[in-house]
């Protein structure tokens, strides 16, 4: 199996991440972060800081143009001008010759504030006399029509059929409330960036991002520069998971670079990351379901309360996704769903690996387990009876063309027999096994790719995608290599630079392999066409008689007649007098219809594709302490076609590990808006001792068409893990823990 192409530089320590960049004269940028949650800024005095020897620039919100940014709701500024809305929000920044001077300068900045009462929960934000967090909310631009009012960032609703009639026709009605914590992406690399403004007034930013083009767009907007004068280079990234999708510290570094004339590097500390990355929203989800005795799901009502934090970032989108996904991968005749996303004076939440997916499925799939037990139906059977298949529709009424959930369930069931039946029991511990499924809509963003067939037959592929560990470079090189019949090592990939590669939508929404795969393959196909057409003249045979392989062009039924790719590339240049073959291709995403009558204020009502997955977890619950340890996880995921199989396995295993953290240990704990466990000792991401063997089952479509059938795998593996674990805990000790994480205390109290 092919290895990751940039693996070598990573194991030798030569890979350059943003924090590793060093150039002569580079200086340190530091951000002063607010210690209060909600306050009006009366005055910021920077004189003393500016005068400190070694300080090159001091900036505040006043130095930035008066514009707002944001993906769905433009409610945020590059740096606050008038009002602080969370602890950790940047209020000023300095550039200085070294770290110590920068720290000293921050201490010399004086801020006069008028503190305001804070809002520390979504419920609090909805109270009649709650302090208004965004006074001018009515003036904010939104990308889609959203129902917004006071502290409500978005009120998303969906209705289908007649919910009361649905409940009346049901034999069993089940209600549950779920409480889900705010969790962090916690990539191992805290975000870092370097900016420089050169004498041609071009701004270059080298940064650890998932999307160079999004960062470019953000910087250009916040600084009011033409896009052509901003170049963003995505260097190696130490993990993203949604934390590194937009311009944040990059805009600040850019302004410091403009003011100081130097290269400015900003590195976030781990604490900065916990205070100011844009983590997964905390939520409360209430679900009421009506079901027939034979297991058919009839009606579902749900109320979803989402804490957005200080800004929208991704709140309206996440809420919309929960509204869509709250059914789980099942069909219902009657639906009444309402999601309310509320501003609070806490860290603003963003997209975290499958935003809305793990949350919705924790509710849907643990309740499914309850229904199976109450009706005495096998959990696989109950899921198969209700499975969404092609032709069924989603909550917003998008008719599915993707299918395969039943197959995923079947494959998981078979794998469980092989892998879970013979794990030895541990004395003093109760064993339980649980399953959960999922569906997930991939995002769709158009992208481009350029291929150069060089004079010597080697290939250079230019893409705008950043390699964030997702394997995009390897996957795209493999597609080109296979299409052109050359070894993957002969494809050199130039990536992540907005000035070197065509537009790319970013490592978000499990979209890259499909969305970028399409233009990459189309470009490769066009290169192939031109090669074959030239070779057909040279060999004097019809194009249809030719094929590519082993870096050669063969006549199909007489393989002794052939040309080397190198010869073709070269002689074509000589013959035509032109340059090497250069092809650029681009794609537009597929935007299926949905039923506009059914939903309101829904920002993500249709998705290009849906993927399905299902996982099984075996756990041991300590009968004395209540501690849950996971013995094994099997994760079956449908990918259409696995382009880079080792990478797919890695995505599945890593996603499950993140799901285990959500299930068992991760929770940001707040006191009056301050995260009190902002370090890895107190905020526990899974260690090598917590994560067991994870068996990935990669499900491909028979006769998959590439690129059409390629599906993403970045997010889905993190989705069904927590409900599978919770269902296993119930199987072991007979208690339902509806609040994540499932800590020993919670299990202990529930079993007492």
């Amino acid at each position, binding site marked *: 199996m092919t*290895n990751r192409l940039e693996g070598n530089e990573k*194991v030798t*320590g030569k890979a350059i991440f943003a924090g590793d960049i*060093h150039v002569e004269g580079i200086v340190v940028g530091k951000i002063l972060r607010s210690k209060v949650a909600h306050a009006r800024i009366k005055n910021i005095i920077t004189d003393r800081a500016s005068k400190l020897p070694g300080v090159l620039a001091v900036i505040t919100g006043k130095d930035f143009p008066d514009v707002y940014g944001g993906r769905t709701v433009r409610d945020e500024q590059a740096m606050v001008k008038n009002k602080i809305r969370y602890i950790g929000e940047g209020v000023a920044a300095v550039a200085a010759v070294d770290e110590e001077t920068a720290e000293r300068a921050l201490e010399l900045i004086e801020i006069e504030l008028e503190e305001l009462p804070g809002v520390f929960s979504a419920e609090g934000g909805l109270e009649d006399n709650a302090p208004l967090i965004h006074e001018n909310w009515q003036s904010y631009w939104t990308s889609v029509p959203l129902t917004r009012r006071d502290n409500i960032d978005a009120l998303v609703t969906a209705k289908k059929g007649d919910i009361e009639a649905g409940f009346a026709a049901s034999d069993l009605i089940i209600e549950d409330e779920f409480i889900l914590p705010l969790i962090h*992406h916690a990539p*191992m690399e805290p975000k870092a960036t370097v900016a420089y403004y050169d004498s041609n007034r071009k701004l270059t930013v080298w940064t650890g991002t998932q999307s160079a083009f999004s960062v470019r767009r953000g910087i250009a907007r916040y600084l009011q520069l033409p896009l052509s004068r901003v170049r963003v280079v995505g260097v190696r990234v130490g993990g993203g998971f949604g934390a590194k999708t937009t311009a944040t510290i990059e805009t600040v570094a850019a302004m410091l670079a403009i003011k100081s004339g130097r290269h400015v590097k900003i590195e976030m500390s781990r604490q900065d990351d916990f205070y100011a990355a844009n983590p997964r929203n905390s939520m409360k989800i209430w679900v009421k379901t009506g079901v027939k005795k034979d297991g058919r799901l009839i009606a579902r009502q749900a109320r979803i309360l989402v804490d957005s934090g200080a800004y929208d970032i991704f709140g309206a989108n996440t809420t919309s996704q929960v509204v869509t996904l709250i059914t789980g991968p099942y069909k219902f005749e009657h639906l009444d769903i309402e999601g309310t996303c509320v501003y609070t004076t806490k860290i603003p939440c963003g997209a975290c690996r499958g935003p809305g997916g793990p949350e919705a499925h924790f509710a849907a799939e643990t309740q499914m387990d309850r229904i199976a037990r109450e009706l005495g139906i096998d959990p696989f059977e109950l899921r198969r009876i209700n499975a969404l298949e092609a032709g069924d529709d989603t909550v917003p009424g998008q008719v599915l063309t993707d299918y395969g959930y039943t197959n995923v369930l079947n494959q998981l069931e078979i794998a469980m027999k092989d892998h879970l039946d013979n794990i030895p029991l541990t004395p003093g511990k109760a064993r339980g096994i649980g399953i959960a499924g999922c569906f997930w809509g991939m995002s769709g963003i158009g992208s481009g790719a350029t291929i150069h067939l060089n004079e010597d037959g080697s290939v250079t592929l230019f893409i705008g995608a950043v390699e964030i560990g997702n*394997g995009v470079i390897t996957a795209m090189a493999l597609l080109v290599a296979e299409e052109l019949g050359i070894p993957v090592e002969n494809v050199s990939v130039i990536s992540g630079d907005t000035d070197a590669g065509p537009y790319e939508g970013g490592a978000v929404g499990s979209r890259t392999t499909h969305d970028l795969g399409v233009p990459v393959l189309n470009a490769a196909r066009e290169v192939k066409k031109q090669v074959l057409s030239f070779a057909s003249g040279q060999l004097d045979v019809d194009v249809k008689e030719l094929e590519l392989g082993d870096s050669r062009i063969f006549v199909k039924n007489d393989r002794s007649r052939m040309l080397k790719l190198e010869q073709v590339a070269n002689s074509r240049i000589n013959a035509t007098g032109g340059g090497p073959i250069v092809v650029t291709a681009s794609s537009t995403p597929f935007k299926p219809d949905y039923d506009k009558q059914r939903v309101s204020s829904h920002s993500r009502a249709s998705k290009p594709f849906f993927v399905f997955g299902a996982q099984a977890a075996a756990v041991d619950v300590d009968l004395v302490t209540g501690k849950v340890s996971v013995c094994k996880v099997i994760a079956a995921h449908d990918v259409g076609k696995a382009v880079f199989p080792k990478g797919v396995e890695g995505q599945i295993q*890593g996603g499950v590990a993140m799901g285990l953290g959500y299930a068992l240990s991760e929770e940001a704990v707040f006191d009056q808006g301050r995260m009190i466990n902002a370090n890895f000792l107190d905020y526990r991401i899974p260690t090598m001792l917590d994560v067991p063997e994870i068996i990935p089952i990669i499900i491909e479509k028979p006769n998959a068409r590439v690129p059409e059938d390629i599906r993403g795998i970045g997010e889905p593996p993190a989705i069904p893990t927590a409900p599978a674990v919770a269902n296993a805990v119930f199987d072991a000790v007979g208690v339902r823990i509806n609040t994540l994480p499932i800590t020993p205390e919670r299990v202990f109290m529930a079993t007492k």
Partner: protein
Amino acid sequence: MRQIKFRVNGVMQSIEAADNQTLLDILRERLHLTGTKKGCDEGDCGACTVLLNKQPVNSCLVLAAEVDGCEVITIEGLANEEKNDPIQQAFVDCGAVQCGFCTPGMVMMTHALLEETPNPSEEEIRNFMEGNLCRCTGYVKIVEAVQTAAARRLPEGGGECD
């Protein structure tokens, strides 16, 4: 400030450092050996693992004064231009690298483990490396890489990951 002398990857270094400067900052900022990563600066993640007199340490917790007269090996000291160390190669071959940020620390820790325990059990690997966090891989392939590297370093050789 104090003058410290220590050997890094076989080369003698003599630098002036503030007492509170960490070995990690000296390596990264002064010697530009940026292969060693800073994931937390608090001793909680293992990304900054180097060998100090052959023992694995979190270099973010080691102060300048403590390294005077010592021998330090970083990730840059393992490979030569021609050839990766078998541990590095096993990490590549087994798909144990995704973003690669935890990788230098993981590789150094593996080095320390295999020097002491050439043929570790899975349990020994997991116990020894527990302090090295990885957010990308779920550790499965990292454990496989350590096992593969161990096998390849044994005289009887072998060690393939699929």
